[in-house]
């Protein structure tokens, strides 16, 4: 039996002589692209792709290698980039994908993301963001003195953290899930160059795969709270007529915020009704108003004013979504359970646009810190 087994191994190993193979590159030969940025190309149907990868040469002046090429598809950019670099470029460590506002608005991001999604080497956890106020090429080629490694900087910036919890932290998977969903639309972080830094300034709204508008950070925090029960970042609101002087606004900042939400719908496509209940609890860290928060009645009044302010803001965002015929919160899921019609995103957008939305927000101040 052993002889037969040895013979078998010999035979199959001999067969491998027929393999027409070439020398495989080792890990040192690879240049791992960390960021891919997409701008409008100069030629029709082309895109300008900027690639950044860690600098392999210790003595080089910069910590990052950057290449910009004009091509028709993302993997062509990798091929073209490889001809400029001493390394064989690979997408295996791709962490961040950036689109200029113009590219996301005019061309749309689907074609790029679909091709990256197709590549098993690209992790579906790679973050994406929209770059405002200029091109991606400019953003990536700028100097950030105290952040020399743009790959790491952008990756850390776009990673979920408490302080930036307003951001949707969209990955390739999330974007594709929302774009292809029968209910919801996608959101993405919106970043801009701000002096020596890059700043998360707003949240980009998408209809299908195209950028259409933005919402501000405070609005986005509440929108994120409505999307699911979660801990969110600090919130800050102006409370009208609550200041020390008559007619003056006060400012209140809450932190350690926990939110829970409940969405109800009537399931009637002819007269759609949507009820959104949001319960948020947090501790006061800043308050410039006249009320004494240690007094039960006065604290209730502040909560009431805060409730009105958040309701107004939330309703404003929802009305904007209705106008744009998008549903980034996926309210349609609740409606769909009761509606057995043939469902499509367009069908839901039509219902959502006509829906009568009622919002009820209940903020609870659990603590006023270590003083009254």
């Amino acid at each position, binding site marked *: 039996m052993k002889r037969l087994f040895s013979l*078998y191994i010999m035979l199959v190993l001999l*067969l491998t002589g027929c393999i027409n193979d070439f020398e*495989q590159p080792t890990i040192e030969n690879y240049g791992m692209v960390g960021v891919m940025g997409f701008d409008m190309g100069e030629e029709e149907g082309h895109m300008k792709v900027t690639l950044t990868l860690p600098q392999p040469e210790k003595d080089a002046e910069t910590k990052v290698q950057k290449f910009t090429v004009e091509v028709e598809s993302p993997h062509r950019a990798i091929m073209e980039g490889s001809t400029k670099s001493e390394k064989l470029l690979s997408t295996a460590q791709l962490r961040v994908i950036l689109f200029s506002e113009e590219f996301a608005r005019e061309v749309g991001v689907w074609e790029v993301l679909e091709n990256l999604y197709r590549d098993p080497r690209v*992790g579906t*956890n790679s973050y994406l963001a929209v770059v405002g106020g200029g091109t991606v090429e400019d953003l990536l080629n700028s100097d950030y003195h105290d952040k020399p490694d743009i790959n790491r900087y952008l990756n850390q910036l776009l990673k979920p953290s408490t302080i930036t919890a307003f951001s949707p932290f969209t990955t390739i*998977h999330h974007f594709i899930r929302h774009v292809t969903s029968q209910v919801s639309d996608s959101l993405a972080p919106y970043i801009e160059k701000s002096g020596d830094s890059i700043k998360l300034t707003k949240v980009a709204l998408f209809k299908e795969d195209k950028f259409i508008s933005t919402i501000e950070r405070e609005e986005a925090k509440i929108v994120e709270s409505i999307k699911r029960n979660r801990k969110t970042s600090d919130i800050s609101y102006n409370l009208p007529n609550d200041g020390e002087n008559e007619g003056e606004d006060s400012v209140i900042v809450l932190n350690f915020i926990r939110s829970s939400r409940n969405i109800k719908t009537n399931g009637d496509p002819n007269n759609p009704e949507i009820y959104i209940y949001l319960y948020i609890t947090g501790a006061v860290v800043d308050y410039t108003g006249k009320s004494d928060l240690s007094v039960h009645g006065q604290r209730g009044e502040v909560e009431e004013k805060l409730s009105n302010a958040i309701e107004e803001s939330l309703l404003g965002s929802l009305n904007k979504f209705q106008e744009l015929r998008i549903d980034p919160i996926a309210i349609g899921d*609740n409606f769909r359970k009761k509606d057995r019609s*043939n469902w499509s995103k367009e069908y839901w957008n039509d219902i959502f646009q006509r829906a009568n939305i009622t919002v009820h927000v209940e903020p609870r101040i659990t603590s006023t810190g270590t003083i009254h």
Partner: protein
Amino acid sequence: MDKGNFKKLNKYHVIFLLHCSLGGIALFTIPHNLSHVGYNMWMVVILFGIVAMIFLKPMTSLGSKFPDDTLYVINEKLTGKAVGKLLNLLILIYSTIQVANTSKLYIRLVQSVTMPDYTITMIAITFFIVMIAIINGGIKSIARFSILSFFLTVWMGYYSNWAFADSNFHHLYPRFEHSLKDWGHAFFEGSQIMLGFALIMFFYPYIINQKKAYKHAAIGIWLAIIFIGLICVASIVYFSRWQLENLLYPLLNLYQAVVLSNVERIETLGISLYVLLVLSKASIYLWTAKKGVDALFSKHKNKTWHLYFIASVALFIVLGPIPIYVQALIYDKWIIIAGYVLILLPIFLLMLYKVKNREKRNKGKEASAS
């Protein structure tokens, strides 16, 4: 290798042989295969469990009538030499193609995800050498390997947590918006994951406690169904309909959801570990095919070289220049139809057994009367 028909499989062997004969590489693709019914796919998985339970009964009943014989022997006993041999040849072809199919799907996955710069030749050869080493120890060795595979891979289920954390449970709400044709398509295309339980007819004579074989096999089947169900539920809540329809390996993308501080791209580890499950399933089929060669060419006597021969044939099918459209026809259609024929075969054989028994009794009565 198995010499004689002595009983050697205890209840744990039976449970895990059945568990591993379901699933295999299809675990990677099952949400895609069932995507014809969209988010209702979890119901199809339960249906698979029920169907397997129903068709398992005639298999164990047939086994209890012939406690020392594999299906190859039973075929010859009940249908006669010529028809029996023809049936055995068809089963041999079916098992060999199943070996090639299971191996090829996995090897392609490894090649495209973890070793994109290599051809499949060396991976396939290595895979088959390991498979031969497992089968050389006989059915008990395969059973032990199946137990090992289960415990070395089951913990990967923990990583579905990430998918559930980022999920939409509204998707699980049952909606019967699909036509019967869609349900039929999903059931047919997903069947590959269920049909493996028919292999019990080949290792039944090796089971020690044959009276409880049905119970132990049922535990194995439902264990597998629970894991398949878990993968489907995680996929349902994590993906959109489009993703389910277009992603070839949804399990791979589920693993990509995992974010750990010390390990990246956990799917590579997942694919590597799943080789154990795929090897278990392919080994059971290859062992069955080898028994088929024994039945056809050495009057059921064990010959080790038969294993090398049939492994080489399967390896050739994996590496050989078979046109894609022929592969699609064989792997996606023919093999599933053949699998259904195999699970229906014991019903036909049981009927034949009853008819033959009745004839025998009548002849006995006539002989005693005269």
